C-alpha cells in the first residue's frame, strides 16, 4: 500500500494541497498564507517528481498507475508550469476575483488531474484524470463570470470539452469491446486480428478525437482562441502548456504502440494518415489564421494550434529521435508560451488594458523597452529564431522527420513556420516600431513575476544552446526516457 501511495506521491500532494487551500479559503485565510500553501505543495510535489525520476519504473494500484522516469519527466513539466502560473497569477491578479483562494485550489485540482492523466496505465483512470483536469480548467476559463468573453470562454470550453470527453469515453468502450480489457498493455499487445477489426479501429479513432480536442489540433481547434481570449491571461498560459503536455504525454504512451506497430505501417494505417493530415492542417491553419488576428491572446491561441501541429510530427514519424524531439519541443514550448502569456498578463495590469488587442501594444516599446525585450525574446523563440529554445526544438523535430524520409511534411512545416514568424514579428513590431500614446507603466515587475519570467527567459536561452553546453544536456536526459 505504501509503495502504491509513493508511486503517485506528486499527485497526492497536489490533491491534499487543493483541499487544504480550499479549506483556507473557507476560513478566510490571508492571501499570503494561501499563496505560501499553494507554492509549498507544488514545490513539494515537484521535489517528489524529481525524486521519483531516479526510481525504477513500476506499476501501482492494481496496475492502474505507472511510475517511472518518463512519467516523472512529464509530471515535473506540469508542476513547473503550475508553479510559474501561481507566481504570475498572484502578481497580476491582485485585487481581482482571479486571485481568490478557490482559484489556487482549482489550479491544484487541475494539476492533480493532469498528473493522474499522465501516470495512468488504465483507460478508466485516463478518463478520470482527464475529467478532473478538464472540470477544474472549465472553472478557471470562466473566472471572469461578469464579462461577456469570460462567460463565453467558460461555456464554450465546457460544452465542447464535454463532447470531446464523450467521444473519448465512447472510444474506450469500443476498445473494451474489441480487446476485453481496459489496461494499456492489452491495447498495446492486442493481436493483429484484433487491431484489424473495425471495432478496435473505431475505438482508436474516437479516442483520437478526444486527444485532438485537448491538444487543439485542427479540425478540433475552434474553441482555442475564444477560450484563451476570455480566460484570465495567466490561466490561458497554463491551459495552453500544461494541459497539452499532459495530453501529448499520456497519449504517446497509449497510442504510439498502436499506431506505429510495424503491421500498421505496412498496411497503411488510417490512424497514421489521419495524424499526418491533422499535423499538416494544424500547422498550416494555425499559422495562417493567426495572421488575421488582432488580439494578442487569440494570436497565441492560433499559434498554439500550429505548435500542436509541430509536436504531432513527432507522432507521425514515431522514431526514437522523434520521441526525443517531441519531448524537447514540449519543454521549449512550455517555457516560451508561459513567458509570452506572463508578459501579456503583466502589460494588461500595469497599463490597465481593457482588452488584449494588438493596438494596445503600440508605443509600449518606448516606455518599457526592457519588458518588451522579454516579450520579444519569447516571441522570437516561438517564431523559431536561433539560438533560442524554440529553434532548437523545431530543428530536432525537422531533423527527425528528414531522417525518417518525411521531406514533404518538413517543407510544409517550414513554410508554415515562416508564416508564423511573420505574426510574431508583427507583435514585436507593434510594440517597438509603431508610435503610440502609451502611458508610463503604473508598476514595476514584482518579485514573483521577476522570478518566474527570469526562469523562463533563462530556460529559453539555455535550451536553445542546449547542445553546445559543456554540462549534460536536457537532450541526453530525454533520450534516456524512452
Amino acid at each position: 500500500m505504501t509503495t502504491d501511495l509513493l508511486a503517485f506521491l506528486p499527485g497526492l500532494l497536489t490533491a491534499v494541497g487543493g483541499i487544504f487551500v480550499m479549506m483556507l479559503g473557507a476560513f478566510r485565510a490571508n492571501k499570503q498564507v494561501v499563496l505560501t500553501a499553494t507554492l509549498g505543495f507544488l514545490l513539494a510535489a515537484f521535489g517528489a517528481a524529481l525524486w521519483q525520476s531516479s526510481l525504477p519504473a513500476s506499476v501501482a494500484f492494481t496496475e492502474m498507475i505507472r511510475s517511472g522516469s518518463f512519467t516523472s519527466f512529464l509530471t515535473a513539466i506540469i508542476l513547473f508550469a503550475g508553479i510559474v502560473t501561481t507566481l504570475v497569477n498572484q502578481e497580476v491578479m491582485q485585487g481581482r476575483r482571479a486571485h481568490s483562494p478557490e482559484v489556487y485550489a482549482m489550479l491544484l485540482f487541475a494539476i492533480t488531474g493532469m498528473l493522474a492523466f499522465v501516470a495512468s496505465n488504465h483507460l478508466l483512470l485516463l478518463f478520470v484524470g482527464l475529467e478532473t483536469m478538464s472540470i477544474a480548467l472549465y472553472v478557471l476559463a470562466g473566472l471572469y463570470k461578469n464579462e461577456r468573453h469570460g462567460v463565453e470562454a467558460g461555456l464554450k470550453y465546457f460544452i465542447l470539452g464535454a463532447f470531446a470527453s464523450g467521444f473519448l469515453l465512447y472510444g474506450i468502450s469500443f476498445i473494451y469491446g474489441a480487446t476485453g480489457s481496459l489496461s494499456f498493455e492489452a491495447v498495446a499487445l492486442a493481436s493483429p486480428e484484433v487491431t484489424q477489426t473495425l471495432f478496435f479501429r473505431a475505438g482508436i479513432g474516437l479516442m483520437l478525437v478526444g486527444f485532438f480536442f485537448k491538444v487543439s489540433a485542427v479540425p478540433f481547434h475552434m474553441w482555442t482562441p475564444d477560450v484563451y481570449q476570455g480566460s484570465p491571461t495567466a490561466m490561458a498560459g497554463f491551459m495552453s502548456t500544461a494541459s497539452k503536455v499532459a495530453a501529448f504525454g499520456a497519449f504517446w504512451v497509449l497510442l504510439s504502440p498502436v499506431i506505429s506497430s510495424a503491421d500498421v505501417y505496412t498496411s497503411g494505417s488510417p490512424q497514421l494518415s489521419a495524424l499526418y493530415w491533422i499535423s499538416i492542417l494544424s500547422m498550416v491553419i494555425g499559422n495562417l489564421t493567426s495572421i488575421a488576428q488582432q488580439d494578442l491572446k487569440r494570436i497565441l491561441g492560433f499559434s498554439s494550434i500550429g505548435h500542436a501541429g509541430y509536436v504531432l510530427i513527432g507522432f507521425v514519424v514515431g522514431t526514437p529521435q522523434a520521441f526525443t524531439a517531441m519531448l524537447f519541443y514540449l519543454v521549449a514550448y512550455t517555457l516560451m508560451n508561459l513567458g509570452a502569456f506572463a508578459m501579456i498578463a503583466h502589460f494588461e495590469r500595469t497599463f490597465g488594458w481593457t482588452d488584449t488587442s494588438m493596438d494596445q501594444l503600440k508605443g509600449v516599446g518606448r516606455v518599457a523597452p526592457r519588458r518588451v525585450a522579454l516579450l520579444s525574446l519569447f516571441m522570437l523563440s516561438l517564431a523559431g529564431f536561433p539560438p533560442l529554445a524554440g529553434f532548437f526544438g523545431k530543428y530536432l523535430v525537422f531533423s527527425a522527420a528528414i531522417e525518417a524520409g518525411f521531406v514533404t511534411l518538413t517543407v510544409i512545416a517550414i513554410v508554415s513556420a515562416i508564416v508564423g514568424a511573420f505574426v510574431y514579428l508583427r507583435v514585436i513590431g507593434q510594440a517597438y516600431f509603431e508610435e503610440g500614446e502609451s502611458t508610463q507603466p503604473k508598476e514595476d515587475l514584482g518579485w514573483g513575476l521577476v522570478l518566474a519570467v527570469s526562469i523562463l527567459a533563462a530556460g529559453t536561452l539555455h535550451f536553445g544552446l542546449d547542445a553546445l553546453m559543456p554540462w549534460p544536456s536536457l537532450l541526453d536526459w530525454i533520450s534516456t526516457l524512452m
Partner: protein
Amino acid sequence: MVPEFILPWLLNLSMWIPFVGSVLLFLCGSPKRGRVMAIVFSTFSLILSIILALQFMPIYGASVQFASAGATLSDSFRLGYVVGLDGASMLLFAMTSFIGWIAILTAPKVFSRTNNAFYGLLLILLGASLGVFAAQDLFLFYIFFELALIPMAFLIGIWGEEDRTSATYGFVIYTLVGSLLMLVGVLTVGFTSATLIEGVSFSTHFDDLMAAAPLFQELPFWVFGSFLFAFAIKIPLFPFHSWQANAYAQAPIPAVLFMAPIMVKFGSYAIVRFVIPYFPVLFEAVTPWIATLSVLSILYGAMIAITTTDIKKILAFSSLSHMGFIVLGLVAWNEPSIQGSILQMVNHGLTTAALFLGFGYIMALNPSRNLMDHGGVASTRPVLTTMIVIASMASIGLPGLNGFVGEFMILSGAFNSAQLGSTLYAVLAAFAVILAAMYTLRLLKFTLFGTPQHALDSEVTSSSTLPKGWILGLFVILMVWIGFQSPTFTQFSQEWTVVMLEHVQQVLSDSGLSGVSPSVSLPSN
C-alpha cells in the same frame, strides 16, 4: 611574436567580446558610458582580428587555422561549436571587424538617436557576423546567419526612417524564407555526410561535408536549390533583390554599414565556401542560369541607379550591380575569377561602407535622402568631398584603387572561362562599368558640386562638432594599398582557391562529368 597556442583563443575572444559587450550594455544605464563601452569592446575585437590577420599563414591558406572546437551534440550527432579561419574567410573576418568598429565609432555622428540598446544590437550584429565567417560547422554557420537577422530587424524597425515597418517585414520575411528552407538542405547534407563515418548518424562539420561531397551529387536537386535560393536572396541576385533598396533606405546609417558591406557577403562567401565545393556537378549544371542572373543584376542595378533620386537607393542599386560582378566571378569558376571575387568582396565592403558613411555625413547635415536637395558640399567640406570622390572612383574601378583590381580579375577570369562557354557575359558586365561611372558621377555632381542648396549648411560648417570626414581616410588608405599592393591581399586566398579547384576537379572527374576543366588559369596575375 604571439605564441601559437593563444591564437585560437584570440579568435574566440574577438568573436565573443561583442556579445559580452552587448549584454553589459543592456544592463548598463548610463548612455554616455554605454557608447564608450561599445567603442572599447569593438576596438578590442578589431585589434584581435588584426593580430589574427598578421599571424595568418597564407601558404597554408587551404587549411583551417586558429581552429578550436567546443562541445558537440553527442558522439553520433556531430554538430557543434567549431571555429577557425581559412584563406576564404580571413580577410572577410578582418574586414567585418574593421567596418563594425567604424560603424560603432561613427554612429553618433551620422545618427542622432543612439542609445545603449542601439549599441548593444550593433555589437550583437558584429559578433554574429564574425561568427558567420569563423564557423567551421554548417549548423553553427546557420545559427549565426539567422542570429544576425534579429538585431538587424530591430535596428531597422525601431530606429529606421518613416517607412521602417514595411522595410523590416520585407527584409526579415524574405531572408527567412530562404534560410529556413535552407535548414532542410542543412539537415539532408548532415545525414548524408554521416553515412561515410562509422558510428555517426549526423555531421555538419565542414571537413566531414567536404569529404562527403561526391555523395551530394546524388542528392535531389532541391537540396542544392535550397542553399542557392537562400544565398541568392541574401546577396541579393536579381530577381530576389526587392527587399534590398527599401531596407537600405529605411535603415539608420550604422545599421546599413553592417547590412551593405557585411551581411550581403554572407551569401557570396557561403557560395564560394561550400556551395561550389559541395555541389560542383549541380553548380556546373546551373552555371548559365546563375551567370545570366548575375549579368542581369549588374545591368539592372546599374540602370535603376541611374534613374533613382534617393541617395541611399542609388547606393543600394549600385551594390546590387557590384554584387553581380562577384557572383559572375564565382560562376566563371577559375583561379583568377574566384580570387578576384574573394578580393572584390572585401573591396566592395570597403567602398560601400565608405560611401554610405560619407553620404551619411552629408545627410546628417541636411536630412534629406533626395539627391536634388543637396549640392555644393565641396565648397564647404573639402576633406569629406575628397574622401567621397576617392571612394567613388574605387567603386567605379579606377586603376590604382582597389575596385579595379577585383573587377579586372573577375572580368579577365570570366572572359577566359571555359565554364561560362561564352565571352558575352564578360562583355556585358564590362559594359556596366560605364554605367557605374554614369550613376556615380551623377551622384557626385548633384550632391558634392553645384551651388549649395541648403542655407544651413554654410552656417554650421564652422562648428567643430560636425564630422570632417577624416575617418574616411582609413578607408582610402586601404583602397590605395589594395590597389597598388594587391598580392598582399590575394595571397590569402591563393592557396585556398587552388586546393578548392582541385577538389572540385576531383569530384567532377569522379562523377564522370569532367567535360571542361575549371582550372584554366591565366599565365600571370
